[in-house]
């Protein structure tokens, strides 16, 4: 019998009972799941299901009303966004949050903040490690821009970019954080079918190249099914299905959640 070498499954992210209430409204209700290292993990569900809120809980933008989040064995529940970023979790935003008046290069350079440490005096007086760090930051940022096909427009203001390019720029910025985990919030929104296809292979590419674990919120179901190793489905803040794409797609609860609205 040939032995199949299996890559060890390591739980990198573990969400347990994540809950968030806004007054009387429960936006995220007791959601638990694990994400394995190296996975591309999809998060789908109808509008308003709480997907972005869940991302916000995981990245510290809002505090959970209950539950815990563990990352690489450490409890990161309720940490502020900058601390989450520092630990290697980067994200993009549903509504694109680039720094509008900064150039593409500057936008991406910002993400290198956590990997550098020059203070005010080193920066102003040009003392080490500032010059070296500036060089490295610029270089890294240019690499990411090139990877995302935006290097030729490095000095243009972010707000001048077309919508699709802005999404790519946001991903470039997130990558410049040199994260282990990448959270993408609707990265394909507003893209045409061609672009979506390119995006799909791009995500797989960077996952392999940078040893990433990717969490993805997406509406476009075919994209998710073709790209993700596993998929979680949220509806009204609750986790209603979790598994590989094919299984989830056939799950009656999922079908009802999506089609039930149309009734």
């Amino acid at each position: 019998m040939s032995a199949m070498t299996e890559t060890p499954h390591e739980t990198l992210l573990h969400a347990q009972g994540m809950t968030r209430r806004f007054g009387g409204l429960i936006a995220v209700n007791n959601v638990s799941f694990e994400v394995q290292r190296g996975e591309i993990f999809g998060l789908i569900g109808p509008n308003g299901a709480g997907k972005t809120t869940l991302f916000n809980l995981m990245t510290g933008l809002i505090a959970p009303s209950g539950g815990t989040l563990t990352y690489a064995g450490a409890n990161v529940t309720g940490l502020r966004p900058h601390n989450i970023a520092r630990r290697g979790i980067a994200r993009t935003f549903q509504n694109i949050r680039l720094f509008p008046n900064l150039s593409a290069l500057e936008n991406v350079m910002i993400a290198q903040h956590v990997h550098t440490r020059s203070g005010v005096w080193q920066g102003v007086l040009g003392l080490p490690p500032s010059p070296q760090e500036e060089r490295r930051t610029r270089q890294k940022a240019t690499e990411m821009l090139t990877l995302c096909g935006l290097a030729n427009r490095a000095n243009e203001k972010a707000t001048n970019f077309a919508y699709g390019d802005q999404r790519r720029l946001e991903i470039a910025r997130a990558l410049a954080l040199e994260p282990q985990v990448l959270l993408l919030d609707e990265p394909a929104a507003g893209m045409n079918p061609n672009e979506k296809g390119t995006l799909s292979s791009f995500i797989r590419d960077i996952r392999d190249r940078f040893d990433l674990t990717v969490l993805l919120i997406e509406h476009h179901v075919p994209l998710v099914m073709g790209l993700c190793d596993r998929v979680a489905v949220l509806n009204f803040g609750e986790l209603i299905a979790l598994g590989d794409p094919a299984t989830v797609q056939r799950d009656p609860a999922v079908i009802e959640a999506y089609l039930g609205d149309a009734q």
Partner: protein
Amino acid sequence: MADFFTSNSGVIVSMVLAAILGLSVYLPLMAGQLSLASPGFYALGGYTAAVLSTRVFPHEGGQIAFGYIVLEMLAAGVLSGILAIIVGIPALRLRGIYLALATIAFVEVLRVLSLNLTITGGAIGIFKIPQPFNSQHQLPYLLFAVPMLAIAMLFVARLERCRIGRAFTAIREDELAADAMGIQPTYHKVLAFTMGAILAGTVGAVSAHVLNTWNARQGTFDASIAFLAFVLIGGSRTFLGPVFGGLVLTMLPEVLRAVGNIGGLPKPVTTFLKDGRFIIFGLLLVIGTIFFPQGLITPELVGRLRGRTPPTPPAPTADPLPAAVR
């Protein structure tokens, strides 16, 4: 020619100091903080110098050694910095309007305190502050003012290009996104605020000597408006803006006053020209926010003046969705 400078020496020195005060508002603004607190630190710096020079340091016949002024500036800077950190850490968790209000409140509290404490001389203030220079006019003070301005400008220019400066700008552009990219907002906001405070405090220390007296009228609401005007009209997106604003807006009322002294104008006009500086500031603020929200000196203007052509806007693409940033 020399006559012109000596007789207008007061204005010239004020202009240079005002430019630095503009920068003291610009620094917190780099991190997106609209702070009206500079006058408070300015007043504190002035009181520090006034108290030290009239009560602590040796002085004789209205003269005090140059070196003591430098010590006072240091003391003023340190005190301002400490107060800025104490006030800033809680206050800078606030955003936008709430922060502006908190800084207004802070300045008012300081003002009332200074009106009522004995050490600050109460409502009368402190007067007969000794001078380091034996001169009929104020030009020698440029020995302080000009290097201070040069250093401040250099500092800010270099700051904008380095890691911390980038962090400030990121916070200004989108605090939440900056946070998510690993930049700790409160630390950086307090840092920017403190730097501005130290700058304002040191200017205050020098000003106390320039003006010879110091009282609660130095740290008032009017001052907040003036400093704000320096930045908002001068230019809020580049360090050259507040410098320009400080220089021009301090010079403008004097020019108007000179015009008002030309004989033959009807009284309402001359009174307006001589005393209407705040009417004009107010009007400029209103017009500025509508037509020049970024101020007069914009990064684009600076780029153009340097010979760089502005980047051409992208040709309209087939993408029907507009650039949706924010």
